[in-house]
């Protein structure tokens, strides 16, 4: 008889605004899929069951499960909160209906009332919380009419019957929780599963009880041993020998437990460190590389700085003479310019002087005017031969002729035209610059060489920086991906290696020392036990005492063997089932077929590995693959159950780490294992599709194993306060 959830509905629960009628999901036996994008109500849907089973809600802000009363304001639909007037009330709740077998149907309602007392709707102080009693109703499937249940224990039983608490971890899970369910770092992980699936605990209790009964039977047998003949001596000796061996056995047994505990602790520590160790080892490797690369980077950066400093020097260093670059033609240019300048200068000087005293430079007489001798004659005769007129002494014409005669004398009075101090300066410059000037021809090559060197250093720095960044990114990825902390990688490695060493030491002690010794003692003890049995038979001891001891001894041994057999059988069964599911899960992938192998460690825990066709342990697969392996074991725990598994699977985002091929395999496999599966996924959502489904979603919609499919949607672009989840039933 399986529990099948018929429906779940929400009343102002998170984004599910409105009453139960507005937010009912009808579900069926088989696979039920609720497709929703982020924020469209998947985890809220799941939270309803968390409330149902544990009175808790997983707070999406910090991923911590919290009591309803502590987060009640967050649970109420924001839209409903806004619409509630001050002093008004709003009810928030969930309702689940399920059938169990063919006779009864149950209804469970959990809810509370919140009264608004002030303005700020998100402030818990603005609301008063009033929880309502959980309401459980029961109905006959023939005459469908719910009758309330009042007895608290019965209410609890009805809730527990939906998914038995001990199976909830396999049947009610959220995403990465599957990693925790089958945590092979804990010895208890598989053992717990075996205990849930078998009566191994009963066998363990029977082992202890039959051992006790054997001891009591032996004590009673001893009381009957009254004679003092030879056989009696032998019997007493046998009893004493057995007692001694028994003491040794107990002593060795205690030591075995101690070493098993040491092994178990070390194994647990090693398994716990497995992920961090792999990370730590990688981190250490990266740290070493980083250290090395950083050192190289510092060296090159220093070289670059020194190089830059040297560049400055090259301008003024006579060996490089960079300052004179471009001055190749400076001397000839200077000479040319200087000549031109001088020529121009003289021209200008002449013009200026002419301007100032043109008579000094120009004869104011017509062409072929008289020379000095003629002028002298003209002065002497007081007559101008040019115009042939008299020029009486002291007259104006006379003075003019005198002036003409005396003209050259005034030229001594020269006026400076422009400064000419630089002639010497440039000359000196030329002399001083001679060593630089000689190098000008090779400067360009020197600069090119320097630029190549600079480029080379820059390239080196860029490469080293890129390498350092990549190493840092890789290191950061490790820290983000794993549960790794910033603990020293060396410390983790040393702790891990220490754990392995302790495991190995304990294993040697257990396998090579204690177990053989205990085995021998157990064989040895049979001799005195048989002796006691046979001697008791020959003495006058009542048969009942002898039979009591003999049977108690044999049953004690048989019970131990039965317990071991049952455990081994269940492990083998789990392995078979896990492999069957694993093959189904990976059937859509192009994976090389390997097998999942369960093996018992010296501490008694079960190790779980993926073995390839050559028998090698395959490690380091993707997260999706790892989760797939664990799902196989979860499914094996369900399907290996000797009785039919009676509980639905409720899973939120179980396939988030899977690829599409895994996802398809998952839906196929889950339908074969669980009587009902309710899977909340976003991977099948396609915002651009009319039906909001991916191709795989559409394929699954046609799959006959999929009985119902809903697509959740939220008001596009709406603020949180107006966000409302609506659903479309596709099937």
């Amino acid at each position, binding site marked *: 008889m399986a529990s099948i959830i018929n429906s779940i509905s929400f009343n102002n629960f998170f984004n599910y605004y409105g009453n139960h009628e507005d937010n009912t999901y009808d579900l069926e036996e088989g696979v039920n899929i609720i497709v929703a994008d982020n924020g469209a109500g998947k985890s809220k849907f799941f939270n309803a069951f968390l409330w149902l089973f544990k009175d808790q809600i997983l707070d999406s802000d910090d991923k911590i499960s919290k009591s309803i009363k502590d987060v009640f304001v967050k649970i109420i639909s924001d839209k409903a909160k806004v619409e509630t007037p001050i002093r008004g009330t709003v009810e928030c709740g969930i309702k689940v209906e399920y059938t169990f077998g063919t006779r009864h149907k149950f209804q469970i309602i959990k809810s509370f009332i919140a009264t608004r007392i002030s303005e700020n709707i998100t402030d818990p102080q603005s609301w008063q919380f009033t929880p309502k009693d959980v309401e459980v109703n029961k109905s006959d499937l023939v005459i469908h009419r719910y009758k309330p249940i009042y007895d608290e224990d019965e209410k609890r039983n009805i809730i527990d019957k939906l998914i038995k608490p001990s199976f909830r971890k396999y049947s009610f899970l959220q995403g990465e929780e599957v990693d925790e369910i089958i945590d092979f770092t804990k010895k208890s992980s598989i053992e717990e599963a075996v205990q849930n699936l*078998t*009566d191994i605990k*009963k*066998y363990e*209790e*029977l082992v202890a*009880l*039959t051992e*006790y*009964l054997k001891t*009591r*039977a032996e004590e*009673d047998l001893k009381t009957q041993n009254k004679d003092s003949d030879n056989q009696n001596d032998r019997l007493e000796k046998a009893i004493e020998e057995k007692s001694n061996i028994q003491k040794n056995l107990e002593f060795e047994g205690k030591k075995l437990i101690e070493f098993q505990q040491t092994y178990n602790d070390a194994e647990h520590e090693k398994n716990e460190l497995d992920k961090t160790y792999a990370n730590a080892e990688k981190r250490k490797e990266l740290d070493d590389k980083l250290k090395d690369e950083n050192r190289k980077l510092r060296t090159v950066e220093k070289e670059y700085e020194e190089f830059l400093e040297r560049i400055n020097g090259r301008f003024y260093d006579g060996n490089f003479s960079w300052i004179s670059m471009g001055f190749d033609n400076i001397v000839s240019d200077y000479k040319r310019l200087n000549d031109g300048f001088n020529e121009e200068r003289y021209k200008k000087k002449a013009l200026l002087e002419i301007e100032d005293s043109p008579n000094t430079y120009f004869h104011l007489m017509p062409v072929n005017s008289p020379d000095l001798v003629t002028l002298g004659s003209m002065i002497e005769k007081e007559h101008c031969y040019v115009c042939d007129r008299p020029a009486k002494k002291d007259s104006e014409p006379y003075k003019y002729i005198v002036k003409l005669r005396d003209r050259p004398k005034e030229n001594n009075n020269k006026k400076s035209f422009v400064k000419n101090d630089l002639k010497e300066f440039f000359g000196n410059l030329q002399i001083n610059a001679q060593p630089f000037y000689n190098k000008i021809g090779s400067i360009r090559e020197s600069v090119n060489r320097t630029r190549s060197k600079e480029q080379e250093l820059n390239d080196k720095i860029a490469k080293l920086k890129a390498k350092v960044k990549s190493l840092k990114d890789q290191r950061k990825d490790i820290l983000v991906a794993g549960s790794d902390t910033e603990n020293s990688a060396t410390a983790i490695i040393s702790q891990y290696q220490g754990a392995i060493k302790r495991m190995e030491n304990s294993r040697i002690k257990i396998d090579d020392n204690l177990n053989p010794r205990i085995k021998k003692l157990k064989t040895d003890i049979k001799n005195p036990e048989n002796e006691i049995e046979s001697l008791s038979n020959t003495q006058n001891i*009542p*048969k*009942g*005492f002898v*039979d*009591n001891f003999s*049977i*108690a001894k*044999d*049953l004690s*041994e*048989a*019970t131990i*063997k*039965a317990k071991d*057999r*049952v455990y081994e059988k269940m492990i083998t069964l789990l392995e078979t089932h896990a492999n069957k599911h694993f093959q189904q899960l990976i059937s859509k992938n192009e994976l090389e077929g390997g097998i999942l192998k369960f093996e018992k460690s010296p501490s008694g825990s079960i190790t779980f590995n993926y073995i390839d066709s050559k028998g090698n342990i395959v490690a380091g697969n993707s997260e999706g693959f790892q989760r797939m392996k664990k799902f196989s074991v979860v499914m094996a725990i369900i399907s290996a159950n*000797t009785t039919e598994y009676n509980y639905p699977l409720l899973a939120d985002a179980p396939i988030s780490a899977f690829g599409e091929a895994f996802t398809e395999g998952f839906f196929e496999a889950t339908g074969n294992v669980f009587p009902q599966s309710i899977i909340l996924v976003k991977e099948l959502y396609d915002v651009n599709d009319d039906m909001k489904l991916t191709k795989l979603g559409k394929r699954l919609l046609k799959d006959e194993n999929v009985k119902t499919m809903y697509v959740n949607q939220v008001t596009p672009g709406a603020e949180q306060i107006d966000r409302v989840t609506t659903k479309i039933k596709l099937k």
Partner: protein
Amino acid sequence: MSRNTILREILSDKELMEKYGIKEKDLDKISTSPPFYKDVVETMATIINEKDNHLSDSQIYTRIKNIYKL
């Protein structure tokens, strides 16, 4: 898992079967309910039944002694 299954599992030990003459074909017929055709069966059935009935270990031993009339 029923009491019978546990009983049969424990009694299916080869050495025990041989020593007490329990035949393979009879194994499935063995039950924790009387009549018991062998003391070894009755003893184990009593242990299983009384353990399930939450009797203490010493109370169970007293019941066992009754089988052997001690």
